[in-house]
């Protein structure tokens, strides 16, 4: 591998390094020089997290070869603060709550700095345009835009500190329900992690580099459903730089399921495919090599012979008799609950309710899978320790779930596994699936070397679990006066090929319907269905969110049907403290009435005075 010398200034300091030719500036800065403030979110020029300033121009360090930067002056976010005093942009990001996970923040600040260097008093449109190459998945952009405008104002006033935006806490609601005598809780406070985010000092799992670290790349199924006839790794093993290649037989307990920890089985998923693949993208062979490039090249030399099988992608098709069986560990294309083929909630007499209703409306709602698309991809770095223990630096959102499942999969006592979490660069529920850690630990165990397994952007988008596709059928009986007297919901959750968290998601749906409304007659069935699609799993309110979309669209349709204002219609049916929910939990702490009252004011959507006088915890009004 040809080494080349490269010299440049980084944040004013001279740097000279010998690097491998073809190394990106991002890798050179992070792995050779140790400035980890530029982040690798996509390595394809899409997310902007790696943005740096080269000779006054904003550039993407992931697409810039380091050796083309000789003689250049490079600025990164880690170099902006001077003598411990934050740059006005950093201060403004801090004050405006413009950081959440913090992974995009260094890139955002770079883009903003170039803007303000050339345009000290930008318009809002100019700020939006300047940030248009930087993706934030957490904040919704508005606080970031406000932070840049604030920093511009503070610059123009030649002040180090911008206008600080104070968090507003509306304490008039439920004032009689609490004492409000706490010093921290209930008080506006700056986020404790923001100073690290705005200076690029927050450590994410990948901000580590161990000598001799191996890189793991996965050979994946190109088919939705196929039998594996043979796997030939002989050519790949001979490839220069390859240290170890893993197949199913190397994994001590290869068939697992995450929720077995809470007795939700059966074990139904393979760490590495064994005999069959059940979705396109399924992990088949793991390649460990000295460099990412060598691992990629060797992965291309792994030969897998498949016999393609019929696949099923549609939940209704999957539930029909004679449909291809997706997952033999279940033996049927739905999850068998202790309640039978679905989770069931029965409350009152729903058929009698429909019979007494003035109108009955049945509608079907469907959603597609949704990817979380965190700017930081799923991954971990595992370091073998001298005492036969393994330290796993991971961005999992489910630390102990992952540790315990890794212990089962590796048949290794938990006390040999040391998991180190920390700040996650955007999760949204997408990093709870115990996918990268067990195989990376196994690789470290079998090679005795540190192992890095980090999803590429393509893997993050196509391999990591999305929110499940759902189908929701809602049938309602409603009276002319606005009361809903009966609601029947049939929900279908597309788990994809494996359970992961979906049986739980479908169960949550059963508990969540009929939504935040008090309805005397309710019938709920929710199914968890297997198809040959990417396994789905958790995502912000999974099992609930799509149901809420369906329920609220249905509520609008019902209001329209009886000619009633949709907000007033919701006031009539809103649940209140003490109401019995369909799954027989009494309602507590319902604030829906007050929330809608505030929404009515904020949206300038007036409702009748009697609704504004209602209360969640005082019946009668």
């Amino acid at each position, binding site marked *: 591998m040809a080494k080349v010398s490269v010299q440049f200034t980084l944040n004013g300091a001279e740097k000279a390094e010998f690097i491998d030719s073809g190394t990106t500036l991002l890798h050179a800065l992070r792995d050779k020089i140790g400035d980890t403030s530029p982040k690798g979110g996509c390595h394809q*020029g899409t997310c902007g997290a790696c943005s740096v300033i080269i000779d006054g121009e904003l550039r993407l360090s992931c*697409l810039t070869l380091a050796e083309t930067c000789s003689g250049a002056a490079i600025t990164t976010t880690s170099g902006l603060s001077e003598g411990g005093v934050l740059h006005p942009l950093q201060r403004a990001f801090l004050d405006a709550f413009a950081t959440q996970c913090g992974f995009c923040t260094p890139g955002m600040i770079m883009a903003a700095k170039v803007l303000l260097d050339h345009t000290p008093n930008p318009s809002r449109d100019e700020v939006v345009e*300047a940030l248009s190459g930087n993706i934030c998945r957490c904040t919704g952009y508005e606080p970031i835009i406000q932070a840049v405008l604030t920093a511009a104002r503070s610059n123009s006033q030649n002040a180090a500190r911008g206008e600080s935006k104070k968090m507003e806490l509306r304490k008039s609601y439920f004032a009689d329900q609490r004492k409000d005598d706490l010093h921290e809780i209930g008080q506006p406070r700056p986020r404790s992690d923001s100073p690290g985010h705005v200076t690029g000092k927050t450590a994410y799992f990948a901000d580590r580099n161990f000598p001799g670290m191996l890189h793991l790349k996965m050979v994946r199924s190109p088919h939705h459903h196929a039998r594996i006839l043979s796997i030939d790794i002989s050519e790949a093993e001979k490839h220069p730089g390859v240290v170890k290649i893993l197949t199913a037989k190397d994994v001590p307990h290869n068939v697992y399921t995450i929720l077995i920890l809470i007795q939700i089985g059966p074990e139904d998923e393979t760490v590495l495919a064994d005999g069959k693949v059940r979705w396109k993208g399924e992990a088949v062979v793991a390649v460990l090599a000295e460099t990412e*490039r060598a691992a990629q090249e060797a992965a291309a030399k792994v030969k897998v012979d498949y016999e393609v099988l019929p696949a099923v992608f549609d939940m209704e098709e999957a539930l029909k008799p004679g449909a291809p069986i997706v997952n033999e560990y279940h033996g049927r294309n739905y999850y068998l609950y202790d309640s039978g083929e679905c989770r069931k909630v029965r409350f009152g007499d729903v058929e009698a309710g429909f019979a007494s209703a003035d109108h009955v409306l049945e509608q079907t709602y469907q959603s597609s899978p949704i990817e979380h698309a965190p700017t930081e991809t799923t991954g971990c770095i595992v370091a073998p320790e001298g005492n036969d223990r393994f330290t796993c630096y991971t961005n999992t959102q489910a630390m102990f779930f992952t540790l315990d499942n890794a212990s089962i999969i590796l048949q290794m006592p938990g006390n040999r596994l040391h998991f180190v979490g920390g700040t996650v660069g955007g999760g949204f529920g997408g990093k709870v699936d115990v996918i990268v850690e067990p195989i990376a630990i196994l690789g470290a165990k079998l090679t005795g070397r540190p192992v890095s397994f980090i999803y590429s952007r393509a893997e993050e988008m196509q391999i990591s679990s999305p929110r499940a596709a759902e189908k929701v059928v809602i049938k309602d009986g409603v009276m002319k006066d606005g009361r809903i007297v009966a609601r029947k919901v049939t929900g279908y959750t597309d788990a994809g090929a494996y359970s992961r968290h979906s049986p739980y998601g479908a169960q949550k749906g059963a508990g969540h319907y009929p939504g935040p409304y008090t309805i005397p007659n309710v019938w709920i069935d929710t199914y968890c269905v297997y198809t040959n699609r990417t396994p789905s799993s958790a995502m912000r309110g999974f099992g609930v969110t799509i149901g809420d979309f369906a329920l609220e669209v249905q509520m609008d349709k019902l209001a329209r049907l009886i000619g009633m204002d949709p907000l007033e219609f919701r006031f009539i049916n809103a649940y209140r403290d003490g109401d019995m929910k369909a799954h027989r939990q009494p309602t507590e702490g319902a604030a829906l009435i007050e929330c809608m009252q505030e929404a009515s004011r904020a949206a300038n959507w007036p409702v009748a005075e009697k609704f504004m006088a209602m209360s969640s915890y005082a019946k009668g009004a």
Partner: protein
Amino acid sequence: MALALQTFSTVKDANAALKAAGTRYLGGGTLAVRAANEGDVSVSSFIRSTEPSLSAITVSGGKVRIGASVTMAAIARHPDLSSLSHAAHAVGGPAIRNMATVGGNLFAPAPYGDFTVALLALDATLSTDGGDLPIETFLVKRESIHAIVTAVGFSLPAEGSFRFLKVSRIKPKGISVLSIAAVLEQAPDGTVSSARIALGCMADRPMRATATEKALLGRILTSHGIAPALAVANDGTAPITDPLASAWYRNEVLPVHLGRLLLA
């Protein structure tokens, strides 16, 4: 094989180096380095040239020559190319525009390559060390062209005759659903006397909308006047399907956006 970069001071030497297997020309890196990052192991050697002419823009007597290494940002801010500024500005965010080159854009597969749509409408000529070739010829066989494109040349469009529209789903900007570039000339009575229209994302590379061009001749730019042109807007299209839009969707919305561009 590990990646390596070879830098040559002349295009001639870089062209010679490109004859070796496993080589790829490196412009701004937004395509070539991305491919390597994403696991394309077919390329083991990047080749680039630092010949100064590659980075030059000359505008003289209504003729424009843009070196292949010129970035979108350089075009967008050039005072003599203000009519094209909008098209150059449509490419990527600020960092991408500081890196992405005209030469690279010519090779960008759909949904990328918006500026090439503009160059196709402008009837550009591409220069190589082996001679010039029209952009349409180039686009047909660009995969098999191994010579470095050194520059693009075209005549500056008459004032107000060049129109460009990029449609994306993300504001203020995102990757193209489609893009349209048009050079329209009108007679004193308002009728279209010549039309050259190019479409992006309506095939795997930029294409001419020849049926639309013909149907516009002699027509005035009113809803009624352009109706026949819109009716044939989808002639010969074979749009891409990608995560942004299906081929069906692109075909459905093309006449709508084309209509807006023509009536603007």
